C-alpha cells in the first residue's frame, strides 16, 4: 500500500530532471560517447547499465563536470545548463558518489564533509554549523555516522555513507551513484536500496550506474542500456528481463550460465591449514582458514571483496608471508618457519592469475613478448643461462597469442595497448601454458567484454577437466555458481562454509556471505 503511495508521490513530472541531447565525447581515437540522448525523470531511480567501456562512467562524469563534452546539450529541470567543472555541477544540484571513494583518509568525517564548503576562511566558524547540518541529514535519511571518526578507520559501507552525506549537504537534488554495490554484502545492499527508495520519496533523482542486472531490475524505475558509446535502448523493469538487457548490452544472445561439468576429483593438490594473517595495521584479514583443494575441481571462493580473499590468494602464491598456519603443496610444507615465495611456488607447479592484472599480472609498458615470460623469465623460455633472447620470447608469445586468440597478435605490442579482455587472456595464457597442477585465479573476468568472458570460462573448465586444481576467487556470484564444483564462502576473513554445487544457490550463499552459516562445510 505504502509502496504505491510513494510511487504516486514520485510520478514523473512533465519536465525531466536531466535531459541530455546529442552528448558526444572522444578521447583521442576512442569515441567514448556518441550522440547520447537521455531523459531522467524527476524523483525516479534511473539505472544506466552497460559493459566495461560502454561509456557510462564517461557520461556521468560529463554530467558532474569532470569532462567537457565535445558536443551536445545538457538540460536541468528544463533549462540549458553549462557545466564546465564540478563546481558548476554542484551548483546545479548534482552530486556524485564515485566508484572509488574520494575521501581523505586522515581527516575525520566532519572534515571530509566540510571540504569545499567550509563556510568561511577560518575553520572554527564552519565546524559547528557543519556538525549541526550533518546531524540533521543523518537523522532525516537514516544515515547514522560519527562525525569525529577518522574516515580511514571506517568500514567501506560507512565510507560510502560519508560520500552520500557529502553530496546531500551540498544540496544535491540529483544523486549519481557509480557502481555503489560492488563493496557491499547482499544484506548491506538491501539496506542501501531502502535508503535510495527513501531519498526518492523526498524527490531526489537518482542515477544508478551498474552492471548488475539483478539489482537494476529490483530497484530501478527506468533502465537505459549503453553499448560501445551509444544509448541502445530504454526499458522499464516490468517490460523486460535480464536476458533481454544482457542481449542489449552485448548485441547478441548471451549465455548467462557457463557450461558445467563434473569434477574429475582425484588427489588433494593443495592444503591450507589454520591460516591466520594480520596486516601491517594489526587488522586480522584471515582467521583460521582451512580447506583442501582437489585436483580436477574448481573451488570457487565467494564473498564481497575485502573479506580476505585477496590476502588468501597472495598468501598461497607466496607473495605474502605466512604468520600462522600451514600450506601444503607438491609434497612440501610451508609455514612460519619455512616461507614460500612466488618463484618457489611456481617451481612446485602453482600458477597465479592475479586479481589486479594491471598492477601485478602484467607490466603495461613492457611488450607482450616480455610479459609472456613474466614470472618465468629465469627459465629457458626466455633464453639460455643468464641472458634473455628476444627471438625465443617472441616465438613463445606468438604461440600463446595463436592458442588463446589474443588480438592483435603482435608480440611487439606494448601490453597497455591491448584491450582489457586481451590483456586478461595473455595473463591466463601465460599461466595455463606453464602446465600447472594448481591454478589460483582472481577476478578472471573483471573488466572483460562478454566474448572474452565466455572464452575464459571455457578455458577454466578445460583446465579442470585436464586434472588441474583451480581456486577461483570472484565477486561475481553468478560466475562462481556457474563454474564451481564446490563453493567456499568467506566473510570477515573466516571460511563460513564450503558447499557442494548442488546445494549452492543464491539464497544459501547470500546468507553465508553475510556471515550466517546455513550450509554445511563440505
Amino acid at each position, binding site marked *: 500500500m505504502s509502496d504505491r503511495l510513494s510511487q504516486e508521490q514520485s510520478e514523473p513530472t512533465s519536465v525531466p530532471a536531466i535531459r541530455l541531447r546529442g552528448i558526444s565525447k572522444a*578521447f583521442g581515437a576512442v569515441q567514448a560517447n556518441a550522440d547520447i540522448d537521455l531523459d531522467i525523470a524527476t524523483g525516479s531511480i534511473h539505472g544506466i547499465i552497460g559493459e566495461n567501456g560502454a561509456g557510462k562512467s564517461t557520461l556521468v562524469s560529463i554530467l*558532474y*563536470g*569532470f*569532462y567537457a563534452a565535445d558536443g551536445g546539450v545538457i538540460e536541468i529541470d528544463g533549462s540549458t545548463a553549462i557545466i564546465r*567543472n*564540478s*563546481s*558548476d*555541477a*554542484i551548483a546545479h544540484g548534482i552530486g*556524485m558518489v*564515485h566508484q*572509488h571513494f*574520494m*575521501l*581523505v*583518509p*586522515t*581527516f575525520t568525517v566532519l*572534515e*571530509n564533509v*566540510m*571540504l*569545499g*564548503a*567550509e563556510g*568561511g*576562511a*577560518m*575553520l*572554527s566558524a*564552519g565546524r559547528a554549523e557543519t556538525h549541526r547540518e550533518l546531524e540533521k541529514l543523518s537523522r532525516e535519511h537514516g544515515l547514522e555516522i560519527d562525525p569525529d571518526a577518522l574516515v580511514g578507520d571506517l568500514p567501506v559501507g560507512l565510507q560510502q555513507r560519508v560520500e552520500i552525506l*557529502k553530496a546531500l549537504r551540498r544540496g544535491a537534488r540529483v544523486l549519481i551513484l557509480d557502481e555503489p554495490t560492488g563493496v557491499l554484502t547482499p544484506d548491506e545492499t538491501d539496506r542501501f536500496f531502502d535508503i535510495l527508495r527513501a531519498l526518492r520519496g523526498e524527490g531526489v533523482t537518482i542515477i544508478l550506474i551498474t552492471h548488475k542486472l539483478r539489482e537494476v531490475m529490483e530497484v530501478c524505475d527506468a533502465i537505459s542500456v549503453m553499448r560501445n558509446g551509444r544509448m541502445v535502448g530504454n526499458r522499464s523493469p516490468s517490460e523486460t528481463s535480464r536476458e533481454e538487457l544482457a542481449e542489449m548490452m552485448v548485441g547478441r544472445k548471451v549465455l548467462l550460465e557457463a557450461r558445467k561439468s563434473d569434477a574429475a576429483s582425484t588427489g588433494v593438490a593443495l592444503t591450507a591449514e589454520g591460516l591466520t594473517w594480520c596486516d601491517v595495521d594489526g587488522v586480522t584479514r584471515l582467521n583460521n582458514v582451512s580447506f583442501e583443494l582437489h585436483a580436477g575441481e574448481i573451488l570457487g571462493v565467494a564473498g564481497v571483496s575485502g573479506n580476505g580473499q585477496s590476502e588468501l590468494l597472495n598468501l598461497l602464491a607466496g607473495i605474502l608471508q605466512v604468520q600462522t598456519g600451514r600450506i601444503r603443496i607438491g609434497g612440501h610444507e610451508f609455514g612460519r618457519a619455512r616461507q614460500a615465495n612466488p618463484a618457489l611456488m611456481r617451481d612446485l607447479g602453482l600458477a597465479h592469475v592475479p586479481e589486479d592484472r594491471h598492477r601485478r599480472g602484467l607490466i603495461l609498458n613492457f611488450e607482450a613478448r616480455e610479459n609472456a615470460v613474466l614470472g618465468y623469465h629465469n627459465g629457458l623460455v626466455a633464453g639460455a643461462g643468464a641472458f634473455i633472447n628476444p627471438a625465443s620470447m617472441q616465438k613463445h608469445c606468438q604461440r600463446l597469442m595463436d592458442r588463446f586468440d589474443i588480438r592483435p597478435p603482435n608480440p611487439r605490442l606494448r601490453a597497455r595497448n591491448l584491450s582489457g579482455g586481451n590483456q586478461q587472456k595473455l595473463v591466463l595464457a601465460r599461466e595455463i601454458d606453464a602446465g600447472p597442477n594448481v591454478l589460483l585465479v582472481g577476478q578472471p573476468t573483471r573488466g572483460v567484454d562478454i566474448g572474452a568472458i565466455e572464452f575464459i570460462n571455457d578455458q577454466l573448465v578445460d583446465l579442470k577437466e585436464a586434472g588441474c586444481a583451480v581456486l577461483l576467487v570472484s565477486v561475481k556470484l553468478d560466475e562462481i555458481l556457474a563454474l564451481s564444483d564446490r563453493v567456499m564462502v568467506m566473510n570477515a576473513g573466516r571460511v563460513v562454509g564450503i558447499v557442494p554445487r548442488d546445494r549452492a544457490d543464491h539464497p544459501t550463499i547470500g546468507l553465508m556471505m553475510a556471515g550466517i552459516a546455513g550450509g554445511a562445510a563440505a
Partner: protein
Amino acid sequence: MPDLWIDLLHILDATLRLATPLILCAMAGLISERGGVIDIGLEGKLLAGAFAAAAVASLSGFAMLGVLAAVLVGAALSLVHGFACITHKGEHIISGVAINILASGLTVVVGIALFQQGGQTPLLGPEERFGSIALPLAATLGGVPVFGPLYSELISGHNILVYIALASVPAVYFLLYRTTFGLRLRAVGEAPEAIDSAGLSVTRLRYGAVLIAGCLCGLAGAYLSIAHGAGFVREMSAGKGFIALAAMIFGKWRPWPVLFACLIFGFLEAIAARLQGTEMPVIGVVPVEMILVLPYIATVILLAGFFGQAIPPRALGTPYVKER
C-alpha cells in the same frame, strides 16, 4: 659558573641566528610537501634569493627593496617548479635538481655581469642590511642576574628576520590547521581526488603552496646575504637548503617538531664553529667537518627508521590525473 652561563647564551644566540634560514626554508618545504609537491630545490631558491637581495640592496641602497627582490625571485623560481611539476606533470625531484643547478649558475653569471667581482656583490653598508633590534628594556634588564643576560643577549638583539622566522612557525601552524586554505592544502597532499570532486582546483591549491614556499625561501636567502652576512658570495647557501630539507623530514612535516629540528641543527653548526681547534678529552682535535655532517648523519639514521616512521603526505610527488 656565570662564565659557562654566558658562554651557553652565546652559543644559543648563535643557534638562533644559524637556525633562521633553516626555519624559513623548512617551513617552505613543509607547506609545499603538505600540498603534495616535493621541493628539492630549497637550496637553489635560497641561493637565488640571497643573490637577489644583495644585488638589489647594493644597487638601490635599501635593504627593504632587497628583501622584496628576494621574495619575488623565490616566487619566480617556485613558479617554474610549479609549471614543470603541476602543469606539465614532470618529475618533482628532477625539477628541483634543475633549479638548484640553474641557481648556482645564474647567480654568478648575473653577478659578474652586474658587478664584475667574480660573482660576489660589493660589501653592503648599514642601510643596505638589517641590523640588530634591541627589544624594549634590554639594557635595563641586562643587569638582572641570570635572567637578565638571557633577555638582553639571547632574546633581544637579533635582526628582524630572526623574529619573523620564529613567528613563521606558529603562523604556518595556524594556516595549516585552523584555516580553510590549510584544510584544503592538507587534503590535496593526501587525496587530491577529494578536492577535485568537491569542485575545487587541485592545480590552484598546489600553485598556492609552492608560491608560499618560494616566498619563504626567498626571505631566507635575504637573511643570509643582507642580515646575517654583508653581501652575496658564490655558493653562500652552502647546503643549508638541504639541511632544511633534512629538518623537515626529521620533524615529520609538522611545524613545531620541524622548528625543533632546525634548532638542533643550528646548534650543531654553532658548536662546530666553537669547537674548531679545541682539544677534547679522548678524541683530540675534532675536525669541524665531522660536526658539520652530523645533521646529515642524523637524518639518515632517522630515515632508517630508528626514530619511528617518517611518513610523508600520501599524494606527495604524484601528479594528479583524473581517472578515465
